[in-house]
């Protein structure tokens, strides 16, 4: 079992952008996107996400698992929400509406009345577009951002030195711990341990994971003592550390960050100044349902 990062140099435009500018851009677009429920605006943001995906030069084969996860996640939760929408969320705007289908169920003695209306179906479509856009916005990050740059990126974005170093170390420990995991798994299998065929009830099955989890964790903790001692002996933390990789903003980074701020401000003006962008159902859909 090989544990590798999804990142590899692809020579894409996105990789040339400073990672700090990319994080700022991603969160600005996320904030902008979450202002809207109107599918026309959401489709614009989905377009931005798809352009970003195309520019990243990742292949469908690489990202298929991620997209499948996102789609199952979005469609599953939206289907549940469409059937059972009640009070408490943005879906509250959907009270009433043009009924397409309604039934009465009794579940554990409770009467429930799932109702599908044109508004709910349209809201579900808007939800899926919004969830896919939000998830897709961050999907390419592991594929296009060098793991060696996370520590210095967050350090230069204001994260305290020790936290940033801890982040940097974590990325470096992954291959070593994955190798330890595989060694332990092989050793336990040689003793007759069958992780794929755990028998017994749920609790027994979880307990049977202990021969895998405990040795790897305790070994890692023991090696941690040695690393701590080595770092203490080298006076770690007595002053701010320097980083092997240095990041420098370029013109295109400033342009991207500036554009992100403009998009956010424009979204806030459109949404709260012009009061545009709330949930919208096209006239043809209402006409089709007889409204």
């Amino acid at each position, binding site marked *: 079992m090989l544990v590798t990062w999804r990142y590899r140099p692809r020579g894409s435009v996105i990789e040339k952008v400073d990672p700090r500018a990319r994080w700022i851009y991603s969160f600005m677009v996320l904030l902008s996107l979450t202002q809207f429920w109107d599918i026309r605006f959401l489709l614009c943001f989905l377009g931005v996400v798809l352009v970003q995906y195309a520019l990243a030069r990742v292949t469908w084969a690489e990202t298929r698992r991620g997209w499948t*996860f*996102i789609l199952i996640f979005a469609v599953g939760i939206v289907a549940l929400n469409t059937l*059972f929408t009640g009070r408490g969320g943005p879906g509250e705007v959907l009270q009433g509406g043009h009924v397409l289908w309604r039934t009465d169920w009794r579940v554990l003695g409770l009467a429930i009345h799932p109702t599908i209306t044109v508004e709910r179906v349209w809201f579900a479509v808007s939800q899926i577009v919004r969830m896919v856009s939000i998830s897709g916005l961050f999907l390419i990050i592991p594929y296009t951002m060098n793991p060696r740059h996370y520590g210095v990126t967050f350090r230069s974005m204001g994260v305290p030195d*020790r936290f940033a170093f801890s982040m940097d*170390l974590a990325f470096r420990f992954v291959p070593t*711990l994955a190798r330890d995991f595989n060694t332990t798994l092989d050793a336990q299998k040689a003793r007759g341990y069958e992780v794929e065929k755990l028998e017994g009830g749920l609790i027994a099955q979880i307990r049977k994971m202990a021969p895998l989890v405990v040795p790897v964790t305790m070994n890692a903790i023991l090696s941690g*003592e040695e690393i701590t001692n080595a770092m203490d002996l080298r006076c770690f933390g007595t002053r701010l550390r320097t980083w092997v990789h240095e990041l420098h903003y370029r013109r295109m980074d400033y342009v991207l960050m500036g554009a992100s701020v403009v998009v956010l401000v424009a979204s806030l003006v459109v949404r709260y100044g012009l009061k545009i962008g709330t949930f919208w159902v096209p006239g043809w859909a209402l006409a089709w349902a007889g409204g």
Partner: protein
Amino acid sequence: MDKKSLWKFGTREVVYAAIGAALYGVFSFLTNWIGLPAAGNIALRPAVAIPMFFGVAFGPIVGFITGFLGNVLGDFLSGYGFWWSWDLGNGLMGLIPGLMAVGIASYKAKATIIKAEILVVIGAAIGMLVPSLLEIPLSGIDLRTAIVGYWLPSFLSNTINGLILVPILMVAYDAVVSRSGR
């Protein structure tokens, strides 16, 4: 760890936060990859015991980083992108058990284990509640869907995995502590 040092983040904490996060990320990725069996909504996610245990053993900040960063690493290895609200929830799931990491004399004492178990349940409840509720404004779901669709399955799964594996890790760690003298 005395009371004053509960929120300390020295060299030792830097290293253990990194080890915890890497362990959580690797376990999450590899146990998904192996394809462990599951019963109903309760998935076999043994990895969730890692942030809870690292919280108990090394304090709330280490627990938080282990949960937050470990979840980021697991998602990055799997190619799922970045799910900041669930990363935050996983961080809280490690932070809350970490609140007991003061003056623990023995990790295998019954009282310590019971205290840890209580905090594991509270941690899983709050940790999974925060991202479930954040999905209301983000995804437009209602409260009922957030509770039934997100919170309940994740809370049950994480609680059961944590309740079983955290005490086992604590007993094993007790032997390590005695050996290393830390």
